[in-house]
């Protein structure tokens, strides 16, 4: 049989495998065929292990034939961002200095969790140099291969949107899961900072770094989240928690801070966001207008802390072999290297004030969550330096695409970005649900209800 792997969700793949509708070998073969058919355009992968993947798929089928599998992700093809260690493969981080680095000996903890639960790690996906940026060159956007897939987990999101794998791992320091999810029409979950182990992941800014899933639906992201959190026993219960028919949001209070999150936004993004508010209202949610005064400070703190911490990580390289660094990374590291320590300490102190401000806002307004456009804009063309707004004004791509994502790295809250429509060029638009720390599943409840009511998850790019 022929599977439509571009539309196939993780939830449906697991059901199809369990029911015998298709085998793991068929699923893997179709994924690899799609990868082969789209690779010239999308270029999402650094390296894959097709032979090993097919062998593992055959082994998964044998296991399924002779016993009831106890591993919840048995046979599911997953991509891994190339700053995350995958045993036996190089972790190159799109850095020239690491092209011939020794292969990783061990899996990162996140990879080990997925492997233990039966997933098949297909290979490494493209990222920005050292995960410090939003372009992810040479990967491209499946909705328009002339455009970027976002970053720095751009290869992971592009691979999922293109049906090369069922889901993928990304990391998020200033938006690197949510930005690619938004521009590729996928779902990205940035968990609470500090909750999931980042051991075995090349750091960018340790006090901001998180690891999380990129998938096709909220349910799928929640399955992977539970695997990563080593709560796999709860995965079976998600089918009841996230029914295909959706649910209501009666009595749920959801905050919107328009002064910051609707300022300098492309008109199509504003329209999609207002439409999403209407859908949430129709589900019974109470939309509460709030004013988070520290949003600008939150954005600045994430950007500044990230520059200082990433500089510490790459200091030796910039001293000894700067010619091996791209200009953007080199400039960032040089700047971080000359900043005084008291600047960094003050940034950390301000971060605490910002965290208290958002906690008070949630308490004062009895909020379950906040929502915001994930990004002010849709995907720019590759090579474009600026985002262009409807009034003709411009903003550098990197600044614009992290403007609404960075604040939540400062606060450390969990955020899930899901599709909420398309612009006039049929490029995806993302909606972020921002929850309270360590309440990823409660946040997913809200996002799932919206997702099912709005139905944008049913759209896939037309690739071949």
């Amino acid at each position: 049989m022929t599977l439509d792997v571009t539309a196939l969700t993780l939830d449906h793949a697991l059901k199809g495998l369990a029911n015998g509708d298709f085998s793991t070998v068929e699923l893997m073969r179709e994924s690899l065929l799609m990868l082969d058919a789209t690779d010239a355009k999308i270029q999402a992968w650094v390296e894959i292990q097709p032979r090993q993947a097919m062998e593992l798929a055959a082994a998964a089928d044998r296991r399924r034939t002779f016993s009831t599998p106890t591993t919840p992700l048995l046979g599911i093809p997953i991509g891994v961002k190339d700053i995350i260690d995958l045993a036996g493969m190089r972790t190159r981080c799109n850095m020239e200095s690491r092209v011939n680095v020794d292969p990783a000996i061990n899996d990162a903890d996140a990879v080990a969790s997925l492997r233990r639960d039966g997933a098949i790690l297909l290979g490494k996906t493209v990222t920005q140099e050292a995960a410090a940026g939003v372009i992810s060159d040479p990967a491209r956007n499946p909705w328009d291969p002339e455009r970027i897939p976002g970053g720095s987990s751009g290869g992971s999101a592009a691979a999922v949107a293109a049906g090369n794998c069922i889901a993928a791992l990304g990391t998020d320091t200033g938006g690197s899961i949510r930005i690619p999810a938004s521009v590729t029409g996928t779902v990205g979950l940035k968990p609470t900072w500090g909750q999931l182990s980042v051991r075995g992941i090349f750091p960018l800014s340790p006090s901001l770094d998180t690891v999380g899933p990129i998938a096709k639906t909220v349910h799928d992201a929640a399955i992977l989240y539970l695997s990563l959190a080593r709560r796999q026993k709860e995965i079976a219960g998600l089918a009841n928690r996230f029914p295909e028919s959706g649910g209501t949001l009666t009595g749920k209070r959801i905050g919107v801070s328009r002064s910051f999150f609707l300022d300098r936004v492309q008109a199509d993004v504003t329209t999609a966001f207002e439409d999403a508010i209407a859908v949430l209202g129709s589900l019974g949610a109470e939309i509460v207008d709030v004013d988070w005064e520290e949003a600008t400070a939150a954005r600045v703190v994430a950007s500044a802390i990230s520059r200082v911490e990433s500089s510490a990580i790459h200091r030796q390289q910039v001293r000894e072999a700067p010619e091996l660094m791209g200009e953007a990374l080199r400039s960032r590291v040089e700047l971080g290297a000359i900043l005084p320590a008291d600047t960094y300490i003050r940034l950390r102190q301000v971060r605490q004030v910002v965290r208290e401000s958002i906690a008070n806002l949630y308490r004062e307004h009895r909020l379950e969550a906040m929502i915001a456009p994930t990004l002010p804009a849709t995907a720019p063309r590759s090579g474009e330096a600026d985002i262009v707004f409807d009034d003709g004004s411009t903003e550098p791509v990197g600044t614009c695409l992290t403007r609404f994502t960075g604040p939540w790295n400062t606060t450390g809250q969990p955020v899930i970005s899901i599709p909420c429509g398309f612009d006039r060029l049929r490029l995806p638009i993302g909606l972020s649900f921002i929850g309270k720390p360590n309440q990823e599943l409660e946040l997913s409840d809200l996002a799932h209800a919206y997702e099912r009511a709005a139905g944008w998850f049913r759209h896939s790019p037309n690739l071949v």
Partner: protein
Amino acid sequence: MDLDRLTEVRLRARSAGLDLDDERLELLAESLQEFNDMLRVLDRIEVNPTDLALETYDPAWTEGASQ
């Protein structure tokens, strides 16, 4: 470019172990200026100077939230 400013950036760069030519020093001085301009938005925020920023999540997150 202000020479005093460039000299300060050169000294800071040397102190950090960076050996930069004049062109890169000027770029770095411009980046530093932009960075400091960006941080001005934080000037109005009062912090506790004895708090060395071992951040925690505020218990206010869960108090009184709707369920």
